[in-house]
């Protein structure tokens, strides 16, 4: 886990990052603004946005921020998976009301950077990322689900 101290659009806020590449140096714009601009490389998805509107532009995207205005709104999990399933490989950053008890689920849905509104205790976060010895579902992360492990 990298401690994010000097990163991209909200450098002070990225607390955890699971990537080695350079952080995109562009402010994330709204999905509507992104679709209007031919040169934007970073976008911020709100819960009501259709992540699939971005699919034609995945090649030029260097940063996708998915905002969680409230942890209870789980649309961002689907948005992240939809983009990863479509082949998006650059940074996917969870921002907003991102809590320690959600980051494990987010990681499994393709998030590889976390900028929580309220910083998460480092030890709590490490425990949360490492919580599950194995997993039941096949998602966009590389983990083999239990039912595959059983039948290897």
């Amino acid at each position: 886990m990298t401690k994010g101290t000097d990163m991209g659009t909200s450098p002070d806020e990225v607390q955890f990052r699971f990537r080695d590449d350079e952080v995109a140096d562009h402010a994330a714009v709204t999905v509507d603004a992104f679709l209007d601009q031919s040169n934007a490389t970073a976008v911020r998805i709100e819960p009501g946005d259709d992540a699939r509107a971005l699919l034609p532009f995945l090649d030029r995207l260097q940063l996708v921020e998915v905002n969680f205005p409230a942890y209870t709104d789980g649309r961002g999990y689907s948005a992240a998976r939809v983009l990863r399933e479509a082949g998006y490989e650059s940074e996917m950053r969870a921002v907003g009301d991102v809590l320690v008890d959600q980051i494990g689920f987010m990681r499994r849905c393709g998030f590889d950077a976390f900028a929580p509104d309220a910083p998460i205790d480092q030890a709590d976060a490490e425990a949360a990322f490492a919580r599950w010895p194995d997993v039941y579902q096949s998602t966009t992360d590389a983990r083999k689900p239990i039912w595959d492990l059983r039948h290897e």
Partner: protein
Amino acid sequence: MYLYDQYDQAMVDARVEEFRDQAQRRLDGRITEEQFRPLRLMNGLYLQLHAYMLRVAIPYGTLNSRQMHMLADIADKYDRGYGHFTTRQNIQYNWMKLEETADLLADLASVEMHAIQTSGNCIRNISSDHFAGAAADELVDPRPYAELLRQWSSFHPEFSFLPRKFKIAVIASDTDRAAMKLHDIGIQIVQNDAGELGAAFYVGGGMGRTPMIAPLIREFVPLDQLITYSEACLRVYNRYGRRDNKYKARIKILVHELGKEEYTRQVEEEFQHLLDEGIEPPLAELERLRPYFADPDFADGPKTIDRSDPDFALWVERNTHRHKRDSYVSAVISLKPVGGIPGDATSEQMHVMADLAKEYSFDEMRVMHTQNIVLPHVRIADLHALWTKLEAAELGAPNLDTIEDIIACPGLDYCSLANARSIPLAQRISTRFAEKGKTEELGQLKLKISGCINACGHHHAGHIGILGVDKKGTENYQLLLGGSEAEDTALAKITGRGFDEDGVIAAIETVTDLYIDKREEGERFLDTYRRIGMDPFKEALYD
């Protein structure tokens, strides 16, 4: 029945440790009650009127004697010596202390049980036919499919913060004993013309304040696409289900507002996409699960038993169900003693039921959504011995599917959402009809009581339903008629203005008297209602 392997056990153990950590953070004051709420809710822990309530999952209602003994021990150790079996085939304890909950969960994990996803806006415990594996009329045992869905839905990373809670039922016979079409997803395992098994998907049913019967959205999903199709149904809901109003957030509202055709179109599109993702478990996993639900070692035996004792004969008549082997029956232990609290069992009774399951039913029990317990495989030759022991433990009430077999939510005695009490009303109704000797005459009559509009007591699906409301600070009860949770699913209709507690009991007597007066040969209350309609009942009640 299913037994955990090392993977399942490791997942449940990890969850216990996670909860221990979460509860400790709350107890230390490191997180607020507001921040703790979603965490405890994902673990079945509710803050109720008087204390924490814990709901323990009993997957598809199946449990063995070791597990039932543990549920009894937990009732003694952490609660006040009893538990409450629920309409979702689970058990609830009403007097929990937060400090002790993690230890309780560890005790549960030691017998392969948990409280995972028994609350919160996630996929809840999967329910099924309580006669699965025993009923003469089933195509196959539905539980391997329910178990596959249980594993898939446990800690699902995309679907743990849905717009609202999500309930799935799986059945495999044309007779519906699980209220399948009143679930967010109802699955019926069916056979196509080629003789292959698959799943019919009904999506968007539910009770609550806007009851709806789920429409069929796909007649046949091949078994090697079952999880992928479920995932597609959930993803469309997670992305587009309403989040602006919690009362309109269930999938039934989405399906209703989009229309069945449009919802189905979106699911099919997502399904085609997800098929390419390869998220389906290997068919070998279903093959692994099936033997856990294979028939026990049935033996031939007598197909009849001496019923000269009229009390025993009545119990056999009322409380046993036809088995696929003609020397066996499924026997129902009623948790509805006259004047008792529907679904409650003491720790002593739980121990008795566990012992009887071990002795007479291949160590297996089921919780029914009607809040009773089934011994699925009882030799007909053993019935009298079983009944004698049940009677001794005050578990022999011969009232399955009668007016005494009332479903009732916990109501205002426990629940922070309730507007009215349900339990005392149920107690008074069963007492009234038993004392007047009318129970037998009324035959099959499903009475269901909810203490508020959330409908945990299934009042929409009662032949007679009662809904408790708050009317200017006093408890008031609306009467509903004509609902059904079975394969002829129907939603009950309100008769008219509500009644006070005495008034609603009198009203039930009025409508049942009218039924007795108007019924034709062989008609149940529901049949007579369907034939003559609401008007005669309204006249009798209000004119």
